[in-house]
Structures are given as C-alpha cells and as structure tokens.
C-alpha cells in the first residue's frame, strides 16, 4: 500500500526532485565558472563540456563502446567464475575455508596495481589485460554475496524441505537457489558499477588507445579539458547504464523481492 503524502514526496516528486537538483547544480557550476574567476583549465563550464561532447560525439561513442565491451566481458567472466566458485564453496567446507580468505586477498588488491602488470604480461595490443582487471574486480562482490545467499536458507524452509522428504537437489532447486537470488543481484549491482570504473582505470596504464580511459588521459595531457570532461561524462553515463541494466535484471528475475534501494 502506498501512502499518499502531500506535496513533494509523491511519485512525481521522486522523479522530478533529482532532475531539479541536477539542473540547479549545473546552473550553479556554470555561474561559478563564468562569473567567478575560475580558469577554464581548472574547471571548464558545463556548456563548454557539452560543446566538446557535441563536437566529438562519434569518437566518444566509439570509445564508450570499446570500454563498455571490456567491462561487459569482464563482468560476465568474473560473475560466472564467482557463481561457480560460490556454488562449490557452499557445498564443500574445505573449499569454502580456502576461497573465503582468498576472496579477501583479491578484494584488497588495488586495480591500479594490477592494471600495469597485466598490461605488461599480455601485451599492449590486446584488450585482454583490461578485461582481466574487470574480471578480478567483479569476482569479489559476486562471490561474497552469492555465497552468503546460498548459505542463508531460512531454518523454517530447511525444516519444511526435510518434512517433505525433499532430496538434496530438490531442496536446492526449490529453496536454496531462489532464496539466494536477491543476494546474487546485490553482488551483481555492486559489480556492474565497479566493472565500468575498473575498465576505465585499467586504460590509464598504456596499451590500446581505444577506450574512454585512454582518451581521458590523452585529452588531459593535451590540456584539452572540456574534451577530457566530455569523456568523463560518457564514463559516468556508461556506469549508470550498467547499474540500470543490473537493476532491471534484478527486478525482472526477482519480482517478489522489493527491498532494493
């Protein structure tokens, strides 16, 4: 049941409020840069960034596609690996006690440390190092959340399965897997945002000049700040797209689960 509150808090308010805030913030930014004494190389105005974006839109799109493809490959590979690992770890105690600390180690690995090493290992003419960086970054949140989900069968459901004399696989299919799905999607949502960030950052360390990250560094190196910001805007949009896609998949797959933020 939705309680109807007066004024802002309705559905309209919820949709409109962020837009209004964004417009106000952009306006304030524009005013600050034009009226105040902020040099354009310190902070270009939103209008200048938009103009740059318009001028090089085809390049921005192709860079976003390159980075997006890396993020997607890494996301898929990392998630599949993490789900398989979580499924095995949930079943085998000895594997769990090995993988959980290992996941903590992987979580502590900074991508900025990994990216140059992978770049050297796999050569500068390949997208593989970037995809691997994303895979590593994606693995941890998906693994940790999926494992938690697989291990969090409600006691009453466990009793019910036993009372109904359900076989191990029947219980897994009926109770464990559907119950784990919301947790898996929490992990995937975290991973989706992280995938884009790490795909962008992985490009900062040389290699192919195809993606958003390398374009941002080269634009900044050439003092073309509005252009650099145009690519940053695209990176932000790409991250949002990934997050929204994960959220949509979650809503579609777990329609009973309404505690998503």
């Amino acid at each position, binding site marked *: 049941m939705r309680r109807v509150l007066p004024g802002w808090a309705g559905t309209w308010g919820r949709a409109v409020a962020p837009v209004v805030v964004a417009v106000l913030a952009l306006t304030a930014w524009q005013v600050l840069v034009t009226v105040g004494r902020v040099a354009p190389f310190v902070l270009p105005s939103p209008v200048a960034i938009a103009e740059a974006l318009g001028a090089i839109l085809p390049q921005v799109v192709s860079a976003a596609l390159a980075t997006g493809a890396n993020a997607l490959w890494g996301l898929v590979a990392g998630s599949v690996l993490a789900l398989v690992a979580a499924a095995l770890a949930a079943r085998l105690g000895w594997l769990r006690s090995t993988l959980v600390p290992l996941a903590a180690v992987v979580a502590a690995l900074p991508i900025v440390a990994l990216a140059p090493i992978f770049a050297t290992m796999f050569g500068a003419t390949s997208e593989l190092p970037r995809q691997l960086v994303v895979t590593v970054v994606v693995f941890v949140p998906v693994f940790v959340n999926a494992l938690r989900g697989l291990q969090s069968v*409600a006691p*009453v*459901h466990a*009793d*019910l*399965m*036993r*009372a*109904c*004399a*359900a076989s191990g696989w*029947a219980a897994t299919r*009926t*109770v464990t897997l*559907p*119950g784990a*799905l919301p947790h898996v999607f929490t992990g995937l949502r975290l991973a989706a945002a992280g995938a884009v960030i790490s795909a962008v950052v992985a490009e900062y360390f040389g290699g192919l000049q195809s993606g958003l990250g390398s374009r941002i560094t080269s634009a900044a190196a050439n003092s073309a700040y509005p252009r650099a910001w145009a690519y940053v805007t695209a990176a932000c949009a790409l991250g949002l797209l990934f997050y929204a896609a994960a959220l949509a998949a979650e809503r579609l797959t*777990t329609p*009973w*689960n*309404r505690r998503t933020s």
Partner: protein
Amino acid sequence: MSPPSAKAMVEVSGVTQRFGTTTALSDVSLTIASGEFVTLIGPSGCGKSTLLRLVADLLTPTEGTVHVAGKTARAAREAQDYGIAFQQAGLLEWRTVLRNVELPLELHGVGARERRARAEELLEVVGLADVADKRPSQLSGGMQQRVAIARALAAKPALLLMDEPFGALDEMTRERLQDELLSIRAREGTTVLLVTHSVSEAAYLSDRVVVMSPRPGRIAAVVDVDLPLRATGTPTDVRESPEFFAATTVVREALRAPARVASP
C-alpha cells in the same frame, strides 16, 4: 521395543532428548489414537516443540523410539504421512499462493494437473481461492498462516503437526482459524498434534491436553477435555460454556502444580 499398536497414530515410548549437556526431554511416553486431537502445552523450555519435532523426524531421539502410523518416524516422514505447519508460515515468497500449496505434492512427484486441482480445493477450504495467484507478501499474517495450513494438508496426511501455528496472530484471527481448523479436521478426519502455550486454545481444540513441565522436559499431567456443545452448538456457545471454563481451569491448575512441586 514392543511393536506399535495398529490403532495408534503416534507412539512415543521412553524418549529422552539431550542437546549437549542439556536434557530437553526426559523419558517421555505418549500415545495418540487415530483421529484424536492432542495439544502439548507448557512453559518455554518444557520440550513441547522438541517432542513435536521428534514426531516429525526433524530430530532423532537420544534414547527411546517414535512411531508414526505404524512405521518408524523416519519412514513416516518419507512417506509423507504427516503434514506440518510452523509458527512462521514459512511460505516461499517467490511462489504464488497456489504453487506454495502445491509444494509438498510437487516434491513427491504428483502430476501438474492433479496437484493443481488439490491445491485449488484446499484454498477453497481455507477460504483463499480468490488470492491463489497472489504472492505471499501481499497477504496478511493470518492469510499466510492459512496458506501454510493448506500446504500442510496438501498430501492428504493422516496426521497434522502444528507448532504454535497461531502464536503470532491477533486474538480475533486466532479464534477464526481455530474454528477453521476444527472444521477441516472434521472434514478430512485428520489426527492433530498441536503445540501451544495458550490455555484457552488447548482447551477449546483438544480431546486431550498434555501438560508439560520444564527442566527436564516431561509430561506433568494429561487432561481429557469433553465439550458436548462442540457437536451441537456454535463456536461462541462452546467458548461460553461452563464445560469450556472448567476445562481451562483444570489445564491452568495442572500447569501451575508442577512449579510448586519442582522447587526443592
């Protein structure tokens, strides 16, 4: 051990249940006849839920034997001789109401059409036919518990086990569900073993009330309840009858008595 008698639905003999150093049940014996409605009542820690879980073969007794429907508890569980409802409805929130009721049949390999027909019939019985396609989260607590009871009855069990199924409900809903339970039981001829800590619930529903006492859990008294108005009167008539008050008084006194004896 002597072989279980043919007429007994549940036969618990000499059961002791220990969890580590704690003795939850000490030398408990109880026989429930086919068609009987028996309630286990007692304070927290008296082992009433433990006893129910032993009958359900969710626990294996440390000592003693449990037979259900003439088989070992394990064989009876595997044959789905009993249905069970817990204090939490424990519905699968990703399934519709109808598919929740179908669950026990599905797990026992009953065909789709047949289990659907049975589930629809049961939802009719508990008065929830119109919410068959809703999800559990869209239902009130009382409605969820009715779905859980329908689910427990799905496989037409000879025995219905209930662990405080109405414990979390308000008094009005509770009384309505108690009456529904009585009419379902009359219709399906099910033997019922129910755990409660409500004196009036025990007296209202049961043929026999088993009063238990804690530390260690054991049977302190067994009270036979005979409410003649059950056959002829309305639920209100029964609840307001002198026999009902007399029965609650006896149960209440039996609950208090062991406490006086217990302190050395």
